[in-house]
């Protein structure tokens, strides 16, 4: 890559990142350092001096370790089975295995409660008394639930990484006598390390900063809940911003450590994608044995989804001390889908998410190129910074974008122009800020996926094209992007799905009903007292169905078989 050109991309992406991410973040986080007109590190040091918050950070770290370990333990065997065997139902489980990541917000907790609560379905099914599963489990409960929600991220990346491995490598190893687990440990695992690192870091940082699951499980001694508690507290407390800063710094540090320990060894393969790996066909009992782990994981991970689906079909109040609701109705769907703003919110979410993913793809590839293909100093910093949006609490970013919009929209040139108001004042039209918020917050998926793809693709293929006279854009279009398509689709799907399910930015920035995204409509329905949880569940189920269909349809449109979508 031409040095001047790579420098240009580096500066461009850094600038975009600073303006769209660090600036709004800074306007909020400075509240922890700029107090009463003075700079102070009192609150920052307070985090470390205060055993309560130190304990919170430690517990968050332990949650992240536990979750990442469990996610890895679930995902790698499944990815390996997918790549090695053709078994009955493979096409379906390969698609269904991804669905747990699309649990809609707000109603997900109701799903858990209906199944695992004292008078929930599980106790009724097993004939147990009113055992409070959610109230009893703490650390392990959070780790299990997080792992069951996040394993698709690791599975997607591991699957793509494994599919990208040149089978000749493994065959060569086998010819030399390296077989079985030894072959997996010495050949397969190192070759798929970029993909594992990509998935692992996302899962690690996500679970380090995850808020929803600890709140559902009432596990309050972790940093994310402490930040949330302090942010929601009445009054103006500078402390949460200092804690956010510590969480961000910790995330970068942990990422850098992880990269140093694991991510540094990337083995590119000359002949990646030249041949497809062979899969063994297993049928009968052996086929069922291979299917079993998929079925088990899907069933357990699907528990809250089943809870939400059953709630959406329940007559209000009728799912109580019974395995399933005692009376079913479609009224909740009539109410939810017939709701006046449902269609506009679906349209809005599609618009925001599609624009965000498109922007993400361009920015993500550019950043990945700088990280992998250039030797510019500071690219490591850009690499680590690109992970930061994962670690920022949604509320903090939303406050940041609100502050930026408020400052800009009070200038005369915005106040006096309808065009600029529509573009920059969230009170008039939040589209631009929502697209920015969605894309920046989901950027890590795209960057990590693209980086993993590039690391596994030998640069010599691009150099060969360059020798034959292809310019940069031709090389990108004809060589590089096709070779990393699997990774880009993986990252894009994650970014799209999670943008559709984004909560905090939509709640704060979309203030008028004509701009609500679907998650805010779910929230509005959920707030209706009495029936809200049922109607909101119905819209949540629709959102799940839509995203599931999107994932499956995407593979159809690409003309590839389901499950093989992540092969290059």
């Amino acid at each position, binding site marked *: 890559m031409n040095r001047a050109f790579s420098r240009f991309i580096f500066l461009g992406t850094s600038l975009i990142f600073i303006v769209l991410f660090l600036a709004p973040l800074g306007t909020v986080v400075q509240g922890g350092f700029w107090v009463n007109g003075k700079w102070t590190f009192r609150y920052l040091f307070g985090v470390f001096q205060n055993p309560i918050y130190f304990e919170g950070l430690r517990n968050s770290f332990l949650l992240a370790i536990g979750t990442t370990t469990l996610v890895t333990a679930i995902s790698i065997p499944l990815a390996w089975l997918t790549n090695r065997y053709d078994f009955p139902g493979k096409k379906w489980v390969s698609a269904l295995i991804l669905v747990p990541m699309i649990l809609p917000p707000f109603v997900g907790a109701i799903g858990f409660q209906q199944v695992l609560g004292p008078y929930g379905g599980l106790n009724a099914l097993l004939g147990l008394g009113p055992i409070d599963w959610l109230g009893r489990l703490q650390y392990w409960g959070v780790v299990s639930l997080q792992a069951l929600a996040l394993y698709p991220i690791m599975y997607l990346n591991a699957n793509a990484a494994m599919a990208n491995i040149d089978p000749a490598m493994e065959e060569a190893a086998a010819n030399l006598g390296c077989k079985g687990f030894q072959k997996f440990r010495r050949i397969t695992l190192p070759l798929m390390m970029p993909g594992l690192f990509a998935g692992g870091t996302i899962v690690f940082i996500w679970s380090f900063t995850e808020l929803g699951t600890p709140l559902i499980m009432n596990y309050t001694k972790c940093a994310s809940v402490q930040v949330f508690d302090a942010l929601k507290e009445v009054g103006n407390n500078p402390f949460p911003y200092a804690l956010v800063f510590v969480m961000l710094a910790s995330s970068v540090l942990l990422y850098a450590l992880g990269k140093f320990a694991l991510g540094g060894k990337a083995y590119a393969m000359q002949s990646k994608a030249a041949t497809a790996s062979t899969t063994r066909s297993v049928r009968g009992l052996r086929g069922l044995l291979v299917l079993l782990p998929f079925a088990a994981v899907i069933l357990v991970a699907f528990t809250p989804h089943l809870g939400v689906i059953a709630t959406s079909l329940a007559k209000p109040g009728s799912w109580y001390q019974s395995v399933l609701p005692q009376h079913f109705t479609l009224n909740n769907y009539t109410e939810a889908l017939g709701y006046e703003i449902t269609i506009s919110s679906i349209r809005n979410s599609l618009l925001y998410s599609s624009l965000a993913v498109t922007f993400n793809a361009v920015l993500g590839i550019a950043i990945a190129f700088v990280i992998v293909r250039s030797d510019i100093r500071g690219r490591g910093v850009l690499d680590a910074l690109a992970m930061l949006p994962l670690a920022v609490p949604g509320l903090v970013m939303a406050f940041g974008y609100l502050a930026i919009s408020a400052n800009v929209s009070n200038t005369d040139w915005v106040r006096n122009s309808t065009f600029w108001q529509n573009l920059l004042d969230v009170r008039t039209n939040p589209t631009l800020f929502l697209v920015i918020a969605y894309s920046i917050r989901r950027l890590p998926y795209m960057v990590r996926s693209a980086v993993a793809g590039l690391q596994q693709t030998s640069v010599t293929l691009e150099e060969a094209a360059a020798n034959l006279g292809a310019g940069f854009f031709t090389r990108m279009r004809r060589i590089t992007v096709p070779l990393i398509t699997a990774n880009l689709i993986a990252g894009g799907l994650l970014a799209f799905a999670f943008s559709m399910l984004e909560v905090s930015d939509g709640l704060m920035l979309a*203030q008028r009903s004509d701009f609500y995204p679907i998650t805010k409509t779910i929230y509005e329905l959920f707030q209706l007292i009495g029936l809200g949880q049922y109607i909101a569940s119905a819209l949540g189920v629709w959102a799940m169905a839509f995203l599931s269909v999107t994932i499956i349809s995407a593979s159809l449109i690409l003309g590839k078989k389901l499950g093989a979508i992540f092969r290059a």
Partner: protein
Amino acid sequence: MKRNIAILVIAAIVIALPFLMRRPGERSTWKPGDPELIIISPHNEAVRFEFGLAFSRWHKEHYGQPVRVDWRAIGGSSEISRYLTSSFTSAARAWWLGRGREWPIGAGNALINPAFNTQNPPHLTRAENESDADFAQRNAQETARWETLRDLYLAFRATDDPDQFSARIDLLMGGGDFDHKMARGQGLTVSPWPNGQRPAGLFIDDAGRVMLPDSIAGETWQADTYFGNTISTFGICYNRDRLRDLGIDKLPDQWEDLADPRFAHNLGLADPTKSGSIAKSFEMIVHQQCYNTLREAGFSDDEIDRYEAAIAAASLPAGDVPPTVPAAYQAAIEEGWIKGVHLLQRIGANARYFTDSASKVPIDVSMGAAAAGVAIDYYARFQAQTTRDESGRERMDYITPIGGSGVSCDPVGLLRGAPNRDIAVRFIEFTLRDEGQKLWAYKPGTPGGPVKFALRRIPIRRSFFPSDDPVIQKQHEEHNRYAADNLADPRINPYAIAEHFTYHPRWTASHFSAHSALIRAMCLNAAQELQEAWTAILRAGGPDRQPEAMAILQALPEKPEPVTWRSAPKIMRTQNRLDVMRDWTLFYRARYAQVVALLKNHEGAR
């Protein structure tokens, strides 16, 4: 191929469903050019829909044009408060700089600081080794900065003109009395009517009857910048089946009942640090203990009223009483306050969780995920209705503890620099008149009632409730014909509830933030340790058989000074909250661990 077609058909059905099931919205005659009104509110869609529609129709009927109400929903009260202060600060900054004035350091905070001193500049103390000249220079700089801040502060509060600055929002509707008091102190809200020019018949009817009291039983229902238009009470919701499973025969009807050890791990509670309204409910629990202790000490209601009046008239430092008031009176209040804190601790020890969302508690209780909880009345009543089975039995019920809850209001207030001021003032008037009040109480489809949603909130206007005055009684009977709840029910009628409860702000109001801090330290930050200690005490025979352990459990923090009724407000006022929270949390964790160790030793010794 067939499979692909099938999936595409499914995709088409999923996408088409919302279009096929779409219902047309309410037809509106509003057209561009007609008036608009912008309201920020934590109220849910049901309230927004009904008030938006009804006000538009009312406005067309009275002023000839419909109004489009542009609701801004950005979350709960704490998000709205943050949003408004940030919007006003940003707008005021642009306005101030546009006037060629300097925006000094700390201006954002000073602007909305209710306690900003406009009379005197800050008093500086000389730093060690600081020369006279340096100190004088620093003093002069600080005084100059203060003068600019003072000018800004006064100019901000003297300006109510959208052409100067504005948050581009007209009204703040909903949230509690606490939120509106805070907005008033921050200078964000203004009075809709000049002094003495309130609309005729709105607050006092033509015959001189008070229709909207300023306050009742010590609770403020209106001030110059905000006007309560619906009432909230706090109480206990419970699940009958869960109570039976826990072996609890007596249905809870007082706050003390929630301290029953059989509720351990089974109470749903909301976090008082996240909502002024929830904090208020916990204050009521403590307040009731103060009252009960006074009564146990032999003081009658008349004496309480008389002594409080004498104390107020004497204007003495907190805790001091004039010679006409017996010292035992004040001692009883202080003792009651400590009992109240202990009760909060024991209720907290039974908590399954402290949620950030007050509406979660009744939902969980209705599902049996919690046996009982502290809830806002209308959330709980609504939720109870969904648990009704075919025989009409509701498995969940709600009760407002007699004498244990005040009647606080949800106000509406006019924001400074409202871009549609006239329409906003008419909206306030509408919500306070019968036409607006009916929306809270009436069944959907009744004359003047909501169109689609039953709001089931308690109105505030006197004419909706029983009275000895025959005119008001007749109005009440007319309203009650259409009301979703029986407004004559003494558990619903706020004027009746208020008869059993008089709020004395002196007892607990200045302890408001101390209560929240104590609950956070002793029940939330040390939740696990508290539950372990409580479980250990229960296993060892219960509180009555373990007085030593209970004494350790209930001890109050000693740093930065021993916590008492007198010291608590001062600690919150003068100490850094972060340090206080750390010290108190560590104190409680250590105490709870001590209880567990003590009881383990006893067990070992046996």
